Structure formats: structure tokens, C-alpha cells
């Protein structure tokens, strides 16, 4: 029998709805798991035990009274520590905000709570979703449950580690250049960067306003669908928010994938200086799985990955520096080394360079959409190989291989990272599924179909 902490979110939801599982018992199972493991994983910077148990008791009472709110009712989640939480410390993993206790919830936290979710606590992050994995911050860096010597990716590092290790049923993350998809891939779980504008960013500490996107991480694509359902919705207080009609994601993902047309973007990762042979082979195997499900797979040619990377870096560095400059100049010592030095690099991007990067971004977006004509989805690598070791982390990782995730931050398209197998080192490998703007449902459906057809969701970290 599956342990409570290893139930998928969807399975736990079904059991709660059928009154076969108590939200209190489920919350206690996660709290016990956190108490047993988090001194090694450091996925949480704050555990809100009493608040979580109180919320679980409320959920149980409401459900017993026939007031079931839906699939997140009584489900324990972790919240990335850049999301404001009313009455609960929100530090962005930084000394700068070490005593910051917001009075209001971020809009997506409010929505998750309204759906009945139980907040277990706040997850570790790279400082301000940018400076990590750094070892001079007020809290330790989260570790990868598949191997503690490796990073869980970032910046939603605690979210990835916690979901994979069974320290919560799901989590919130944010993705400016890959910060949901990187930890999802490194930790062998699912994480979706939704379409830009679909999920409100109000109350989430900004890194780069024109790129920042909020979304969920969970064990499966189906679990992400449930979380996304609660998080989406127009918010007039977020200037980027779009009033879009959204489908029932959990229903949509059950539709068959046969007949879909997919473009594989091999030139992003295959060939010399690309992904490891192991990663390339696992992606080819995944494409074979989809072909067997009736999917048509063709080659897709997008602009060069390095072009997206260059535009993305100019925009992100420039916007992040603008956000942080006043504090950086007043109290640089309150930032960790990685944040301090990375943020300062943004000072060197001129206004003209920033503007040209935004022009280039539009051109790249138009070329990407053009390359998708006649296609429903794109598939490409999510990482070049195994998660890096902590010892390999560098202050400026931007000048090696271009980031595989950045293109879809620039274009605003939905992008889901899922596990596509394991290397000989026992560490997860991952790929990205990319859809058209606001077609997040097809992206999740495609991921769900793959997860149903493969054994990877049955393997958990050996921690």
C-alpha cells in the first residue's frame, strides 16, 4: 500500500472526496515526514505546523458537513518563500526580508486557500528567485532527494525537493528563466510554467516583470492540472493578467492524444556540445511512446537557442537590477554573494540594449509561432544532462551552454517539464512540452498521457 506521503495529489483528493482519507491524517503524515527528513533536505524555511493542523481540521469539518470544495480541499501544499502569506513570514530566502510578515496573501495563495488547500509552510528558494544555490544565506540551500550532493535546481528549489521526497502534495513556484522547470526536471517531478498572464503574480516578489510567471509543481501532470485550476483567473491588480476563459484542466487531460502533431526541436539539444547521449536517447524513447499513442512527430526548426538566451539575459538582468538597485546600493551586505554579484551585472545593460532585446524578443516570438504552424505542441530537452553537483555551481552560469528553458519565457508560451527516465547515475532526466499561448490544457494532456504510459511515476527518491 502506498504511504500517505507518497499518494499523488489526485489520489489523495479522490480519497478525501470519498471520505476514505482524513485531511488531518494526511497533514500529520506530511508533518511527520518533514520532521524526519528536512534536516537533511532543507526544503522548508518555515514549517507552520499549528496553522496547517488548524486548516486541516477546518477542512475535515467542512467535508463532514457536506461542504466539499473540490480536489484541493484538505490537500497539504508548500508555498515558495517569495509568495506573500498573511501572518506567515516571507523572506525570499534573504536577510533583507528576514522579519517580513505580510498582512495579505499573494493572489494565488488566496485562491489555493479558497479551494481548501492546507499550507504546510514556506519552501526554500534561491535568494529572491535569483541568487543560488548560495551557502551564505540565512537558511541552507535545499538539496536533491535523489542525491544530496546534487542541487535540486532552482530557483523553486525547495518546491522540487519537497514534492519529490513526499514532504507535500504539491507546491507553488515561479519561472522567469526556468525556475519551475529546472527543479521539476532535477527532482524527477512535473512542473508547468503556465502561459504568461494566466496566473496572477500579485504578492509574489518580482524578479523580472515582463518574464515572471507563477505556476505549480507536483508529482504528476494531473496533479499540476488540479493546482493550476485553482491558481488561474483574471486579476485586475496584476497588469499582465489576462481575462481568459479556462477549461477544466483535469477533464481535458483525460482526452486521448492521438492525432496531435508535435514538432521536436532537436537543434536545441542534439549534436556536438548539446545534451548527453543518455538524455538524447531518453527523449527519443519518449517520442516513440507518443508515436505509439497515435501522435505525429515531425522536426521543428526554431531560431538559434543562443539568440533567445542573449535576449532573455539582457531583459532579466536589466529588470532585476532595476527592482533591486535601491536596496543593493544601501545594504549590499544583506544580500548573499550570488545575488549581489549577479544583480550588479544588470547595471551594465544599457537602455538601448534592453530596448533592442525587447524588439528581438518580439521577432523571436513571431518566428517561434511561425515554426509552430500546423503543430499543436513542441518537445525539446529541459536540461543537458544530470542535475549539477553543489561543487559545480558558479556565480555566473550564463555564459556556458544557453538555457533550454528561456525561449518560452520570452514567448510567454506554456511549458511543462516532466521526467522522461533516469540516467545510469540514478538521477532523473527531463524534457519540455511546449504549447500555444493559453493552450496549457493540451500541454498537460500530453504530459499526462506519457506518464500513464511509462513506469517513471512509480519510482521515488531513495531517501
Amino acid at each position, binding site marked *: 500500500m502506498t504511504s500517505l506521503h507518497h499518494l499523488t495529489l489526485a489520489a489523495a483528493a479522490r480519497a478525501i472526496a470519498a471520505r476514505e482519507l482524513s485531511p488531518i491524517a494526511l497533514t500529520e503524515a506530511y508533518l511527520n515526514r518533514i520532521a524526519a527528513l528536512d534536516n537533511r533536505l532543507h526544503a522548508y524555511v518555515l514549517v507552520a505546523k499549528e496553522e496547517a493542523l488548524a486548516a486541516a481540521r477546518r477542512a475535515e469539518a467542512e467535508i463532514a458537513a457536506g461542504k466539499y470544495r473540490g480536489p484541493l480541499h484538505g490537500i497539504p501544499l508548500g508555498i515558495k518563500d517569495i509568495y506573500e502569506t498573511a501572518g506567515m513570514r516571507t523572506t525570499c530566502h534573504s536577510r533583507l526580508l528576514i522579519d517580513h510578515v505580510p498582512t495579505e496573501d499573494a493572489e494565488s495563495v488566496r485562491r489555493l486557500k479558497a479551494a481548501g488547500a492546507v499550507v504546510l509552510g514556506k519552501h526554500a528558494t534561491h535568494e529572491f528567485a535569483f541568487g543560488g544555490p548560495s551557502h551564505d544565506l540565512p537558511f541552507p540551500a535545499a538539496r536533491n532527494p535523489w542525491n544530496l550532493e546534487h542541487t535540486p535546481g532552482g530557483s523553486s528549489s525547495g518546491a522540487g525537493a519537497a514534492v519529490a521526497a513526499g514532504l507535500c502534495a504539491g507546491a507553488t513556484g515561479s519561472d522567469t528563466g526556468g525556475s519551475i522547470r529546472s527543479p521539476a526536471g532535477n527532482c524527477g517531478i512535473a512542473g508547468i510554467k503556465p502561459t504568461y498572464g494566466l496566473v496572477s503574480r500579485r504578492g509574489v516578489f518580482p524578479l523580472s516583470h515582463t518574464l515572471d510567471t507563477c505556476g505549480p509543481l507536483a508529482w504528476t501532470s494531473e496533479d499540476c492540472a488540479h493546482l493550476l485550476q485553482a491558481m488561474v483567473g483574471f486579476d485586475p491588480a496584476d497588469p499582465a493578467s489576462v481575462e481568459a476563459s479556462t477549461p477544466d484542466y483535469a477533464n481535458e487531460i483525460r482526452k486521448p492524444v492521438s492525432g496531435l502533431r508535435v514538432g521536436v526541436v532537436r537543434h536545441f539539444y542534439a549534436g556536438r556540445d548539446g545534451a548527453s547521449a543518455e538524455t538524447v536517447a531518453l527523449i527519443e524513447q519518449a517520442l516513440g511512446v507518443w508515436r505509439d499513442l497515435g501522435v505525429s512527430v515531425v522536426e521543428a526548426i526554431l531560431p538559434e537557442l543562443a539568440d533567445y538566451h542573449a535576449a532573455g539575459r539582457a531583459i532579466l538582468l536589466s529588470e532585476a537590477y532595476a527592482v533591486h538597485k535601491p536596496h543593493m546600493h544601501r545594504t549590499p551586505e544583506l544580500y548573499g554573494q550570488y545575488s549581489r*554579484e549577479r544583480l550588479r551585472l544588470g*547595471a551594465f545593460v544599457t537602455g538601448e540594449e534592453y530596448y533592442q532585446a525587447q524588439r528581438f524578443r518580439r521577432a523571436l516570438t513571431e518566428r517561434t509561432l511561425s515554426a509552430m504552424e500546423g503543430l499543436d505542441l513542441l518537445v525539446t530537452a529541459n536540461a543537458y544532462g544530470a542535475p549539477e553537483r553543489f561543487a559545480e555551481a558558479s*556565480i555566473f552560469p550564463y555564459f556556458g551552454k544557453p538555457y533550454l528553458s528561456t525561449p518560452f519565457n520570452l514567448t510567454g508560451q506554456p511549458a511543462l517539464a516532466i521526467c522522461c527516465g533516469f540516467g545510469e547515475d540514478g538521477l532523473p532526466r527531463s524534457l519540455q512540452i511546449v504549447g500555444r499561448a493559453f493552450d496549457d490544457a493540451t500541454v498537460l494532456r500530453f504530459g499526462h498521457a506519457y506518464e500513464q504510459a511509462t513506469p517513471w511515476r512509480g519510482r521515488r527518491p531513495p531517501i
Partner: protein
Amino acid sequence: MSSSTEISAEDFAVLCRRLELVLTPEEADRLRAAYVALQAQLRRIPRPETYFPEPATVYAHPGSTLAAEKRR
């Protein structure tokens, strides 16, 4: 990090002063190397000769009917 765009330590120090960046010598060395690599990366971004190309806006996804609906 290597590039043909080099900058001397002295010139970089002037640049940092203009930007009001106060750095330790070690930080300055690391940032100068990163600056050179960043300049090389930024050269990939085209500078259009025509006046008209627009920058990306955050409010509309090109080709999105939903964005068009929002504008109405």
C-alpha cells in the same frame, strides 16, 4: 568566459564608478570577466536599421485571439 571584447581594470573601474558600484578587488575581477562575456552575448542581439520594429509588450501574445478579446 572568453571574448575579444576586453576592458582594462582601470577602464572597468571608471565604468563601475559611473554606475555607483562599490566593489571589493575580488568582486571587481569577477564582475569584469562577466562583463566581457555579457558584452559578447549582447552582440547577438540585432540592431534593426529600420525604425519600425516594435518591442515585445507584456499585454498581448501575437496571434492570440484571447489577447484580441482583451483589447476589445
